[in-house]
């Protein structure tokens, strides 16, 4: 398969105040593939994701240097709107965080913001995205339930559906399965494998097995540096860097 670059990160550094969380990373992210990002705690994985949809901007202390090209256009260019960017680059957070409203309203929140009002269209979006997130069968009879009443695993799948409902081009997932049981985890992984046909997916995970299961390519982050990136099979079998090898075999530290 030919490798089309969706996002090109060039020499990206992220600072929080005086603390540097990312140290000049460069990598190309392929369209319609799943990029897994692994690395120990506080290696900068979350900061990297949040740099891709400019959520870091919310922290007035934060600052990004370098370039992030989405389809060739720099998302940090002053003419670019962060709000428009976030509609193209959706994000699912580590902790499921449905908004305090019904399941239905959570899913259509994004489309409504974009001006979709037609009830039939919204209904169709709800069914399609909840089905993609493997949640439809569990909630189809109670779409008016307050989303906070769902179980943690269901909430996380709802957050995935809600992100898909915006019809983004890129989906960022930050440890989406960290609080979930193996069955919910399997469901989300299944969903991702199907969804990559339509979206570019970046999956941060603390679970190296998960990366080896679902990611097409894997990047290993350490202390704000990109140590190594390559095809998942290569990273897990013949890593080039000793540190990668130590990490994926669990001999780290």
């Amino acid at each position, binding site marked *: 398969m030919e490798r089309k670059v969706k996002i090109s990160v060039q020499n990206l550094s992220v600072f929080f105040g005086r603390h540097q969380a990312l140290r000049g990373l460069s990598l190309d992210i392929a369209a319609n593939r799943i990029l897994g990002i692994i690395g120990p705690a506080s290696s900068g994985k979350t900061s990297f994701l949040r740099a891709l949809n400019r959520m870091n901007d919310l922290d007035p202390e934060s600052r990004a240097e370098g370039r992030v090209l989405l389809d060739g256009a720099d998302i940090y260019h002053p003419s670019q709107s962060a709000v428009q960017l976030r509609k193209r680059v959706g994000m699912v957070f580590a902790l499921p965080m449905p*908004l305090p409203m019904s399941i239905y309203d959570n899913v259509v929140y994004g489309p409504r913001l974009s001006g979709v009002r037609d009830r039939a269209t919204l209904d169709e979006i709800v069914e399609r995205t909840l089905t993609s997130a493997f949640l439809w069968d569990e909630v189809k009879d109670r779409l008016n339930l307050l989303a906070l009443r769902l179980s943690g695993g269901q909430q996380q799948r709802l957050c995935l559906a809600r992100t898909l409902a915006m019809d983004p081009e890129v989906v960022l997932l930050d440890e989406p399965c960290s609080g979930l049981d193996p069955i919910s985890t399997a469901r989300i992984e299944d969903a991702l494998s199907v969804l990559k046909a339509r979206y570019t997916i970046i999956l941060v995970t603390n679970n190296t097995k998960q990366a080896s299961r679902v990611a097409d390519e894997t990047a290993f982050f350490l202390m704000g540096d990109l140590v190594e990136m390559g095809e998942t099979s290569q990273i897990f079998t013949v890593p080039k860097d000793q540190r990668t090898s130590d990490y994926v075999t669990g001999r780290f530290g």
Partner: protein
Amino acid sequence: MQDTPNTPAQPKRPVRRVTGGVATWCRDQLARYVFLAVAFSATVSLLLIALFILKEGVPFIIKIGLKDFLFASEWDPSVGKFGIYPMIIASLWVTLGAMLIGAPLGVAGAIFLTQFVPRSVMRIIKPMIELLAGIPSVLYGFMGVMVLAPFIRNHFGGPGLSLLAGAIILGIMVLPTVISISVDAINAVPRTYLEGALALGATRWQSVHMVILKAARSGIIASVILAMGRAVGETMAVIMVVGNAVKIPHSALDSVRTLTANIALEMGYATGLHRQALFATGVVLFVVVMILNSLAMAAMKRKAGS
């Protein structure tokens, strides 16, 4: 309540700790009884005040009849006419007007402080606003008489000392209450809601009014109801700016007298039935404020529940 530290149920404690424990225990007990006594006397004195007002006022209401007291529109104690209807209307309008001014301004201020001002600035401004609540009401009234009333007289006509002046002054006076409680309510909304909405492509303003205000709604409502309670009960500033004529107002520029002003103005010389009538007015106020406070509590509880 709590287990004392050296009950015989814990024999394994080192001896040294036990001797230290006796002194601590005595001090704890002492503190407990002192606090208990203070809390008790505070509650009891409030209860006594309430009972006293009821004892003086309720027999009067029974004698005159609740309907004649609340809905007769003539108040002339010298000839035995005790209808407080004009004052009820005045209190309602002044309070409503104050809320129309104070609630939107206060909530807008709270949104501004929490969403569009850096945290560090808010940490300075919020205590300053709370200090405003401590300005004696006579000063608000003074400003009303010297600045606001002439302004109204010159630009809108009428006597100046009017329902409108009262509503504006009270609207300003309740701002600290509305702002401070609303800010707390908004700050209590999990930050994840804001991030969640923004990540879905909402603008800052969209996430504020569609998510944050919704989540903080009960706290904001409570702040407005509490402010209403303050406005109904405020006396000094109101007496100074509303003109105090006992009549049903026909426009916002009319001079009016509120329930609180009525009590304060006439208590100096009231005797007998007149005196009882003032206490009965107090009972009415008391009930209104109680209802408002209960509503506020209910609103806050609902937030904790959902």
